[in-house]
């Protein structure tokens, strides 16, 4: 069935609520309102207020109470209304949800999924487009998943819910409704920690995730048309743990790499991909790895965001640079 990412996510959540009575959804405006992006539309009506409910406006307690619920034995799926507000509950995420198993020596665990929209190019107010996935690399305990299409979104969300440990599931706002894709109505999973070659190629490995996947594909098409360059586009899908095997295999093949993400450059996923390539296949590298990323500034005002978010043109130039002799 043709589904937008929103419909795919709604379908996934509905199936999870149906399959497992322990699953509950909580967040701001997710009940009657169905979520500000309608991802939870109709779910409260279908499953009841006991299992799909709005909370007061308090991110730290949304996560904190979710930790308690998860320890008790429920499987909470908490929504943080925009990923920029993950800063507000960073402590309950990084020092609590991420560590309850660690701290308790396995006596207690936290099967929590935190969903949150992010991403630029959609004219949002401040802190509504920020990419914060990079922070979680330095705060171990969460898996981080960022789908680029409806089909992956549904399968990855199902896997996230099945995962016995905390998962942060970031949903790109620009991709929410940007296209429809054939997506099964029934339950299925896509494993976490596995990247996907959305396009195979020989000359350059372009690593991207979220809304940067279509950007990378567009640049790849132009590179092919303009100079016959054969681009391999790898959708990372899981940001932590990164699929190091896939990253390394691709660079061993091509010898040239570009990493694309909206998040600021420093210490981000791009830096870690470079570090992984450095560690495992430096000897295959023909050119410096290029990072095409947000700048090392806060996400700018809507009127200037298009200059900040990586574009196909920037990725294409990066491809050309790594193709230089």
């Amino acid at each position, binding site marked *: 069935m043709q589904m937008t990412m929103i419909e795919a996510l709604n379908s996934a959540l509905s199936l999870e609520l149906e399959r497992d009575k322990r699953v509950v959804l909580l967040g701001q405006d997710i009940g009657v*309102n169905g979520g500000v992006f309608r991802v939870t539309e109709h779910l409260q009506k279908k499953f009841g207020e006991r299992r799909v409910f709005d909370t007061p406006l308090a991110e730290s307690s949304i996560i904190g109470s979710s930790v308690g619920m998860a320890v008790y034995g429920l499987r909470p799926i908490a929504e943080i209304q925009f990923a920029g507000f993950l800063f507000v509950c960073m402590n309950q995420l990084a020092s609590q949800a991420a560590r309850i198993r660690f701290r308790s020596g396995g006596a207690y665990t936290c099967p929590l999924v935190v969903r949150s929209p992010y991403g630029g190019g959609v004219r949002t*107010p401040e802190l509504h487009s920020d990419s914060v996935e990079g922070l979680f690399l330095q705060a171990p305990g969460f898996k981080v998943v960022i789908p680029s299409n409806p089909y992956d979104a549904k399968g990855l969300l199902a896997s996230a819910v099945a995962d016995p440990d905390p998962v942060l599931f970031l949903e790109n706002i620009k991709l929410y409704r940007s296209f429809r894709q054939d997506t099964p109505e029934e339950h299925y999973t896509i494993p976490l920690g596995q990247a996907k070659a959305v396009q195979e190629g020989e000359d350059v490995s372009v690593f991207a995730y979220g809304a940067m996947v279509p950007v990378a594909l567009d640049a790849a098409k132009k590179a092919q048309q303009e100079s016959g360059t054969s681009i391999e586009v790898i959708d990372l899908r899981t940001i932590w743990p990164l699929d190091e095997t896939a990253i390394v295999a691709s660079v061993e093949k091509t010898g040239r790499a570009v990493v694309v993400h909206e998040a600021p450059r420093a210490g981000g996923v791009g830096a870690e991909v470079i570090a992984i390539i450095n560690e495992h296949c430096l000897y295959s590298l023909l050119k410096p790895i290029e990072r095409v990323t947000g700048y090392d500034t806060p996400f700018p005002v809507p009127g*200037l965001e*298009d200059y900040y978010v990586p574009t196909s043109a920037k990725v294409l130039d990066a491809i050309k640079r790594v193709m230089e002799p």
Partner: protein
Amino acid sequence: MTIQQIGSELTAYQILDVEGNLVGAMPNLSNERILELYRIMQLGRMFSNKIIALQRQGRATTFGSLAGQEATTVGLAAPLQPQDWLATSYREIASLIVKGVPLSTLIYSFRGFTAPYPRETHCLPIQIVIGTQMPHAVGLAMAAKIAGDPVVAVGVCGDGATSEGDFNEALNFAGVFQAPVVLVVQNNGWAISVPRSRQSAAASFASRGPGFGVHSVLVDGNDLFAVYDVMQQAVERARSDQGPTLIETLTYRLGAHTTADDPTRYRDEAEVEAWRLKDPILRLQRFLMKRNLLTEADNQKIIDEIEEEINRATDEALSLPAPAPDAFFDYTAADLLPRLQEQRQDLLRYATHQQNGRR
């Protein structure tokens, strides 16, 4: 004014009833000042409508109208001195206008550009992250006290914001440091789709204060005189080193949460209609007309002038050039880091071939 004791039964302080009749003692306001404040209330609403119209034309970004909340937003700012500070959410446009932030600056910001307020307005930029402005307000007040300046700070937030840790922490700091701050909660009945009743089991947000040792007041937020009165007293308390005040204003968000919201999904039109009867602008208008301080003709003149003012400001703001694509690099730090200088050049290289949508 008698300060209501916080108990399970609280009465909201009121001076002007829904019909525009005085039911309490007027605050010390000249007729000119009252008319001026009335005008700014009208301006606030019309200005909100203008931004909404611009947004529908694709010329402004997401905007949250203050329709229905004009008495609170104007009344809370009106007693302030120029040296006093204001830290609001995104809902208090009229407060910023009272404090002197130009309309064109605000419109320019809603075009999606950075629009510095004149520093002398002592208004922090509108705050998007709910509740975070409340500790800022307390900090501004703490600084004034440390410096020995006769300055008061005002923090304003919504009912939803009272659930945030920051709101409660700010209240506690205010109490401990006896900061010269006034913390105002605009209880407009909703936090997007979450009704007041689901935000807290407290009988009122005013009742939050005593748990932090902070003097608290509950006021009819659609009564300009009452808001002005409690605000003025709270500001004077603070300025005379008698400490902070928490003020809850009971009001209502007549419109949608923002231009991106559809309130018909979660609330009844009947409730909205009931609150329209308590419209703050109508109420004051009735008072003024009963007192012959305002005629229909006067009112129309005010509205026409406001429309002209708004149109002038809009033209000005729309005619202002978009900022340079790399403008935001100027605001990162006092000196641009070398690495950022390179990134700036990178942006410019592509900017000539790019256009950041249409404005």
